[in-house]
């Protein structure tokens, strides 16, 4: 213990939290990939992965090992530093928001006063990663994907912000714990249904999930911004995508679905309420998976029209109405 006492307790706390968060991201990605492939399989009337382990539960781990051991192919004409940097740039911002996500009253690395603003600020970096990847790849399809990603993310950040603001107006706090605490009587999805729907649609678009997966649009752009990536370069983009999905779902849970509040109290609620939180998050994630495997892809102009012509005006009106009612 003498060794540990050399460091300030805050430092140790940070290290432990980061280790837990990174582990959690990988575990979550493993579960989500397996879940997605199984659900996709059953939607498509096939069993999904079945070979590795019982019902294929080890399939994602094997796939991960394959991705890690694969040779990183770097095409000759790419901008090498940027090409290497882009996957990291995409993965890192999907870690940081976990610091402020309140899994339960005690399971939170740090309750910042500006928690939700912190998340929004960090996740905005992701689009930079896609732009860098597309630009550095020296491939026209990648560039197409990157350009689409940028305009799509910028367009949908506005309705996300507006719908979050209408919740913040009701709670008078940016702190994630504060927002959860404000919902101990009634969940905000009942008071702000429009904001929830706007947020969820925009969240799908922010994470580049089908039907808004235009940056990778397989049938048009082969693989979009990650066309030239192989091995773990591709793997990091993949992890980043699942990390972002988890963040979008957990923000939706915190803001609209009552966070870790459950229908009945559990013993040691400060810790065990994480179960309620996870159930809600995974329900949203499964919904996202189901949407992906059901609908065709929208066209690019339709996607932007959806944001600028429908979602933004709707959420502005919603925000104004909220403001008037709350402040009266």
């Amino acid at each position, binding site marked *: 213990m003498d060794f540990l006492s050399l460091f300030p307790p805050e430092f140790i706390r940070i290290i432990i939290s980061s280790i837990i968060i990174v582990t959690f991201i990988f575990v979550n990605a493993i579960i989500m990939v397996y879940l997605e492939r199984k659900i*996709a399989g059953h*939607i*498509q*009337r*096939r069993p999904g992965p079945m070979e590795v382990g019982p019902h294929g539960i080890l399939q994602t781990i094997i796939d991960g090992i394959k991705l890690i051991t694969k040779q990183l192919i770097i095409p000759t004409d790419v901008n090498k530093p940027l090409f290497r940097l882009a996957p990291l740039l995409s993965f890192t911002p999907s870690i940081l928001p976990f610091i402020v996500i309140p899994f339960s009253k005690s399971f939170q690395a740090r309750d910042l006063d500006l928690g939700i603003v912190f998340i929004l600020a960090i996740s905005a970096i992701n689009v930079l990663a896609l732009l860098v990847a597309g630009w550095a790849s020296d491939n*026209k*399809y990648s560039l*197409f994907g990157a350009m689409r990603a940028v305009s799509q993310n910028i367009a949908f950040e506005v309705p996300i912000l507006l719908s979050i603001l209408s919740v913040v107006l009701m709670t008078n706090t940016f702190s994630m714990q504060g927002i959860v605490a404000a919902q101990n009587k009634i969940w905000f999805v009942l008071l702000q249904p429009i904001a929830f729907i706007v947020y969820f649609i925009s969240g799908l678009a922010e994470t580049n999930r*089908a*039907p808004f*997966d235009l940056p990778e*649009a*397989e*049938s*048009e752009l*082969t693989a979009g911004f990650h066309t030239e990536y192989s091995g773990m370069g591709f793997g990091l983009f993949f992890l980043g995508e699942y990390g972002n999905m988890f963040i979008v779902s957990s923000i939706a849970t915190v803001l609209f679905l009552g966070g870790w509040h459950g229908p009945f109290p559990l013993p040691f609620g400060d810790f065990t309420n994480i179960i309620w939180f996870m159930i809600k998050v995974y329900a949203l994630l499964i919904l996202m998976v189901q949407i992906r*495997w*059901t*609908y*065709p*892809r*929208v*066209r*690019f*102009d*339709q996607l932007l029209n959806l944001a600028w012509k429908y979602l933004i005006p709707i959420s502005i009106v919603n925000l104004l109405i909220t403001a008037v009612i709350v402040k009266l």
Partner: protein
Amino acid sequence: MIQQDSTNRESFLLNMGPQHPSTHGVLRVILEMDGEYIVNLEPVLGYGHRMHEKMAESRAWQSFYANMPRMDYVGALPFNHGYVGLIERMTGIEVPKRAEYIRVITSELNRLSSHLLWVGAFLLDLGAFTPILYTFDDREHILDILEDITGSRLTYSYYRVGGVYRDVDYKFINKTRDFLIRLKERFKIYKDLVTDNIIFIKRLKGVGIISQDMARRYGVTGAVLRGSGIKYDIRKNEPYSVYPELDFEIPIGHSGDSFDRYIVKMQEMEQSIRIIDQALDRLPDGPFKGKVPKKISLPPGDYNFAVETARGELSYYMVGDGSEIPYRLKIRVPSYSNLSLLPELCQGMLLADMVATMGSLDLVIPEIDR
């Protein structure tokens, strides 16, 4: 080849194919792009060229027969039908009624399987991953049925001059009837999931409009032509086999956009079911193969025979010189003409619309590169 204008710095070239998920085979399309918009487009062919027409001139007509299904492997039986029909017309060989009915039933089954595959692949082009597995499931049943009587699943050589290779049995008839009942049920799923889907409709309505004049100029056939509102189907306009005895309609579209082409194909499937139902009811007893001489020489002169494949008009034009070896065989395939209007059709289009439009034309590349 598109030449890039050095003074025009606004546009750039994008090479789509020969390996690309939505060109369905080895078609290469050179796109001149202005951002996401297509300024100019040129399809490049020849990656899968096998000199079929030249091969026909160098061997006896029987030896060439096996090449037929290799052209359009998705809907191979109408290609069989056209070739044996041509030889029968040249030599005046009579075909028993039962054989003609079997040909119609199997051809229509093959048309169904081809259309089902197209629906799935078309939706894959639009970014919907799931429907193709449902249509493949249905198609699998057809392949099983056809495998039982023809012996192959994809490249059939089932028809023979003067009849068919094998007779059908009650097992085939029962399986086909069961399948048709099942398929009718499945159409409801397709309607709910696909046809009424708002994203699907928005992606296709008003996209890739082919006017009647344009359709005539390029000589397109099949669902592409009928989607523009022109009622032209070889089965009705130049009836062959026993089609005149059967009651069916030719569905047509109105505006000629991609959505109309989709609707026409879906309605054609319903008509095919109708045809098979009737043909099974009327299937006469009797021989499945007529009297055919051991050696058939091709009489001198020009002969033509056309059939309606799943993609449009297929026409064989043969010149015989009294020997077994054709002097010349010209094959007019539907996909070639249907592809030829793509450059005019896609000018000024978004890349995503171009993929959707190309999908709606239902191209089979080995048929173009034959």
